[in-house]
């Protein structure tokens, strides 16, 4: 008896709960849609302003890139003339990225290239990382190779002082290597970048290189020269990497803004249809109610 009554009651409850929540569901959906619309509009504002900031920073970064690139080219002239004979020596990898995200595939591009290069050269090669983002990625794949990490570099246009400080710490670290490979992102065009590397010789490998004997110099110059050359190469790579990152950030924020405005359009349509449907339903209720009287 009790059971049948409870059984009979349940379907009734379901029918009852069918009518009111219909409107209630629409209202809940409408409320949800409204909230989503508001949050996507806010996101669009944020990504648009980030794109503006990145565009203005990009102009400055590209000017610095022009001179930095020439600086790096002049520096590399010596290494072009003094390529060492034997390859396959111990290499130290220096990875240049930055601490901030929202820049497309910048950090993963340089991390992937480093992983591949380390695997090819010597899986035990020491790796030094500039920038927290790449540090996070590489400490998941090759944590045992990481020798030194730097952060707080790349917030603004890199200066020679930054590059000199990094070079100084690399030399003081006492890692063992014959040449240094700097991994960074090369600024290819306004739409793309690619991971690239610069190789810098150390004092010992410079002395042994055949082309080096052609140069006249005092004996104690080689050490200073190798340190200065490393700082120069680091500076050129840092500046180019910064420009590539600012550009990628601008493109990423641009496509995010476009997606956000697409979403706003779709959500607005849905919201309007939902609002009109609930008004129509209310009218239908009133009219059938009125006609039933």
């Amino acid at each position, binding site marked *: 008896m009790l059971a049948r009554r409870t059984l009979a009651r349940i379907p009734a409850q379901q029918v009852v709960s069918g009518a009111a929540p219909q409107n209630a569901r629409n209202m809940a959906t409408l409320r949800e849609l409204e909230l989503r619309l508001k949050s996507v509009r806010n996101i669009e504002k944020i990504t648009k302003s980030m794109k503006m900031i990145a565009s203005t920073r990009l102009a400055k970064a590209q000017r610095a890139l022009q001179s930095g690139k*020439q600086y790096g080219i002049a520096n590399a002239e*010596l290494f072009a*003339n003094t390529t060492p004979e034997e390859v396959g020596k111990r290499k130290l990898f220096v990875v240049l990225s930055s601490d901030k995200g929202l820049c497309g595939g910048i950090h993963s591009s340089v991390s992937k290239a480093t992983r591949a290069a380390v695997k090819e050269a010597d899986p035990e090669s020491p790796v030094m990382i500039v920038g927290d983002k790449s540090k996070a990625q590489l400490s998941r794949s090759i944590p045992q190779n990481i020798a030194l990490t730097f952060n707080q570099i790349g917030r603004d246009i890199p200066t020679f002082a930054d590059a000199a400080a990094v070079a100084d710490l690399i030399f003081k670290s006492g890692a063992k290597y014959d040449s240094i490979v700097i991994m960074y992102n090369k600024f290819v065009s306004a739409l793309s970048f690619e991971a690239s590397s610069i190789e810098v010789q150390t004092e010992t490998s410079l002395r042994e290189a055949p082309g080096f004997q*052609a140069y006249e110099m005092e004996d104690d110059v080689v050490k200073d020269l190798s340190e200065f050359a490393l700082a120069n190469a680091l500076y050129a790579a840092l500046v180019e990497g910064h420009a590539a990152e600012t550009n990628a950030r601008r493109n990423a924020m641009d496509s995010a803004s476009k997606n956000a405005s697409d979403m706003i359009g779709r959500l607005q349509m849905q919201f309007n249809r939902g609002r009109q449907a609930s008004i129509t339903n209310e009218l239908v209720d009133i009219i059938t109610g009125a006609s039933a009287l």
Partner: protein
Amino acid sequence: MSALRLLSSAARRTPKSIPLGRRGYAEVADKIKLSLVLPHQAIFTSADVTQVNIAAATGDMGILANHVPSIEPLRPGIVEVIESGNASKKWFVSGGFATVHPNNKLTINAVEAAPLEAFSAEAIRTNLAEAQRITAGNGTEEQKAEARIELEFYEALQHAVATK
């Protein structure tokens, strides 16, 4: 007679008045490719110039076309570039390296450089005094070493600006 003697003695004296590096002979046809670059500015990028006078650590030197390849560290001093004819431009360089390559190229990587007109004698005096104070004071060895380098730099700069 005396007029002739006067003339010959005047002729002997004139070479001293010709500034360092300027030849009194016919124009040099060969040029050397100069790249004088700073981190934030490229002053010359593979430009053909006649002669470059640099302040190397081992002494002042003039570099002409087809100079023997060499690597010279620069001390704080003047780099003078003579492009063609007698027109020359001077910059005061804080330091860096000058490398003559086998292919008749000269690359100078300097950390900072500016034309002599850009410096104010007042500022040099103040900074020189400051550096002297720290050298003589009782800071750490590192601070004193930095101040000594600054002192060397400001003294050279003061001398260069004064004898413009």
